[in-house]
C-alpha cells in the first residue's frame, strides 16, 4: 500500500535516476522530460555502483531536495547465481552509504515480483514475500537495505514482466516472442503455452513511477495490470501483428505449469485515475517501434 505525502501532485525538484540507460530507466527519463521534471540520469558508465567508493561519489552528486530512483541491477539474463547477487547487493550498499550522508526528499526503489513465490493464488501487496531464488532474495534484501538506510520516504515498486520495443533482456514474454516471430517466422512457447502471466508496458511503468514521485509516495506497490494472459494467447496476439503468417510451436515442457495473477486493488486506490494501456495496444506500439528501428 502506498501513502502519498503529497496529496496533490507536486513535481520533485530533481530526480536522480540510477540505472538511467536501462530499459525502464530510459522510459522513465523520457516520461520525466515530458512532465517537465528535471532529472539527472546516472548510468553505470558514469558511476558503477558496484565499485569501491561509489557511495561517496554518489553522495557528492546528491542534494537534499532530490528524489532518487534506483533501477541499477544485474538482471536475471546476466545470471541468477551468487556473483550477480553479490554485485547487486554491493550496488545497493553504495546507495545506502550515500543515503547515510545525504537524506533526500524521496527514494524510489525498483524491486520485482520475484520476491513472491510462484506457488499460491492471487498476489497482492499483502502476500508474503518469500523469494525462491537469489534474484528475488536480492531484491527483498535491497528493499530492506534502502528502507533502513534513510529517513526519507521510500516507495518500493515491485514490477511484474515489463515489455516494450527497447527491452534488452529478451526474457520469456512479449519481447522475445515478437523477436522470434520477426526473425524466424515462428513463435515457440513452453509446453502449449498454458502458463498465465501479467505483462505491463514500460510506458505504464514509467507513468506510474512519475505519479509516485509527484505524490512523494511511501510504501510498497506492485506494478502489474491485474490482467493475466496465457502465453498461448499472448503468442496469438503477437503473431497477429505481422503481415506474414506466424507459426506458434509448442515445445517439450521442462518445468511444471505455473500461473501468476495480481490483485491490483492497492494500485487502484493509490492512483485511481490511472488507465493502463490495453495489452493489444501496447503490443502494437512495441511492434511498430521495433519495425521502425529496423
Amino acid at each position: 500500500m502506498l501513502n502519498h505525502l503529497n496529496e496533490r501532485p507536486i513535481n520533485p525538484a530533481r530526480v536522480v535516476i540510477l540505472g538511467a540507460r536501462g530499459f525502464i530507466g530510459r522510459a522513465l527519463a523520457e516520461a520525466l522530460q515530458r512532465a517537465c521534471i528535471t532529472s539527472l540520469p546516472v548510468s553505470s558508465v558514469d558511476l558503477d555502483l558496484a565499485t569501491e567508493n561509489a557511495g561517496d561519489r554518489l553522495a557528492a552528486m546528491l542534494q537534499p531536495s532530490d528524489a532518487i530512483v534506483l533501477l541499477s541491477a544485474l538482471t536475471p539474463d546476466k545470471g541468477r547465481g551468487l556473483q550477480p547477487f553479490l554485485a547487486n547487493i554491493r550496488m545497493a550498499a553504495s546507495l545506502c552509504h550515500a543515503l547515510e550522508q545525504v537524506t533526500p526528499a524521496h527514494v524510489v526503489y525498483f524491486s520485482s515480483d520475484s520476491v513472491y513465490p510462484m506457488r499460491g493464488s492471487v498476489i497482492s501487496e499483502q502476500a508474503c514475500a518469500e523469494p525462491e531464488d537469489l534474484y528475488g532474495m536480492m531484491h527483498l534484501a535491497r528493499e530492506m537495505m534502502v528502507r533502513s538506510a534513510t529517513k526519507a520516504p521510500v516507495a518500493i515498486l515491485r514490477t511484474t514482466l515489463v515489455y516494450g520495443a527497447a527491452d534488452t533482456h529478451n526474457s520469456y514474454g512479449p519481447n522475445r516472442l515478437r523477436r522470434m516471430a520477426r526473425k524466424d517466422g515462428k513463435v515457440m512457447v513452453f509446453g502449449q503455452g498454458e502458463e498465465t502471466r501479467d505483462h505491463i508496458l514500460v510506458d505504464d511503468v514509467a507513468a506510474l513511477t512519475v505519479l509516485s514521485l509527484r505524490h512523494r509516495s511511501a510504501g510498497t506497490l506492485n506494478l502489474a495490470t491485474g490482467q493475466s494472459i496465457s502465453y498461448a494467447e499472448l503468442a496469438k496476439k503477437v503473431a497477429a501483428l505481422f503481415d506474414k503468417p506466424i507459426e506458434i510451436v509448442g515445445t517439450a515442457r521442462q518445468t511444471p505449469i505455473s500461473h501468476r495473477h495480481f490483485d491490483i486493488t492497492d494500485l487502484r486506490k493509490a492512483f485511481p485515475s490511472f488507465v493502463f494501456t490495453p495489452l493489444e495496444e501496447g503490443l502494437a506500439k512495441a511492434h511498430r517501434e521495433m519495425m521502425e528501428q529496423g
Partner: protein
Amino acid sequence: MSKLVIGFAGMTHLGINSAAAAAGQGAETVCFDPDATVIGNLKSSKLSIVEPGLPELLEQSKARMAYTVEAGDLKRCSVVYISADVPTDDQGQSDLSGIRALIDTVSVGLALDAILVILCQVPPGFTRSLALPKERLYYQVETLIFGRAVERALYPERFIVGCAEPDQPLPQALQDFLSVFGCPILPMRYESAELAKISINCCLVASVTVANTLAELSERIGADWSEIAPALKLDKRIGPQAYLSPGLGLAGGNLERDLATVLRFAEATGSEVGLIESFVRNSRHRRDWVLRTLHTEVLATNPKAVIGVLGLSYKENTHSTKNSPSLALIAQLKPWHVRVYDPVVQAPVAAHPETIGCVTALEAAQGVDVLVIMTPWPAFRDLKADQLARAMTGRTIIDPYRVLDGKAVVAAGVDYFTLGAPPLRNVGSTCAFSSR
C-alpha cells in the same frame, strides 16, 4: 416473573433491544444511561437506531420500562445487565475503558444481593479481572444481529452464561429471568463463555469465507454460487441456517473485533492461527470486489464516468455504517462524480466531498454510467430494471447481493455483475454469461 426487576445499564443498540425483549417477556425493567439526551429521546419514543419491530415492542411494553439517568435507580433490580458498547479501533482492538467506568458507576449502588451480568463483547479474562464479588458476577453471551435484534432478543437459541463456579446453580433471580425465554441455559466458566462468543463468530466467519472464496471461483469458471449454496444447506453437516451468502467482506465491527482478539491472544500464547489470518485476508480482498469490477468494466474505458451508489449502511435494516463497504468504496471514488441514496443514512460528505445525496433510488440512478447497489435494502428489490435502464446513461449495474433480477436487467439492455456468478452481458437482445 412479575416480581423480577431487571436493570440494563447502557442504552446502546444491545441495551435497548435487550431491555425491550425483557419487558416484552413480562419483566419490569429499569433502563439506565448516564447520557441525558439518550434517556430523553427514549422517554419521548425517539429512537436513534433502526431495528425492525423495535418501535412496536417498545410501545407494547412501555408500562414495564422505566428510563433513568440515575444509576441509583438500579438499586431495586435483582439482576442488572451491563450493556455498553465496547468501541473498536481500525485494527479491531477493543477500548474497555468505557465499560469499566460504567461497571464502577453501576456496581456501587446495587442492592446487596443483586446479580451483575456483563452482556458486552469482552475479551477472555475480562470478567474474572473485575474486582467484584464473584458469586454475584456473571457474563452472558450476546448474539445481537443488526437488523434482527428484536427477534434474536425475544427468541434466543440458548443462553451461554459465564460463572465463577459453573458447578454451582445459578442465582434464583437470574435463573427465573432466563427461564422465561424457554431456551437451554448453558453455564460454564467465565473464560469459556467469553471464548464461546468469539467461537460462534469464528464459525460464522468461516462459513462466510468459504462462501466468498468459492463464489469468486464461481465467477471465473462459469459456475453460479446461488445454485450451489442451497445444495450445501440441505447437507445436515452444514445446515439450513449456514452463512453461505457471499458478501463484501466482514463489516459492522463485531466479527472483526473477535478475529483481532483471537490473533492477539494467539500471539501472546503461541497458538497457530493461520486460519484466522486467512479470514482477515479474504475479507479485505472481497471488500474491494466492487472497486475492481468498476475499474475493469467501466472506469478503464470511461474515465469521466458518473457513478450511482444505492445503500450506505453496512447492511440492510440498520443505520450503522461501521466498516461499511459502501463508504469504503465511495472514499476510493474521489476522481469521479457520485450520486448516492440510502433510506436512512445521509450522503457521506466526509468520505467524498462531492457526493450528491438523492432522495430516491431512481433519482440516484439518473444519468449515471454505472449503478452500484451496495446495501441490500428490501426497498431496492422493488426497483424495476427497465426504469433504472431508462434513468441511466450507461449500461452497467453492479449488484453484489443480487437485489435485482439479473436476467431482467440484461433484458433491459444493461450488463449485470453480481457476486458468485459470471457477468451477465447484454448481447443484442439476448443474455450471455461471460468469463471476461
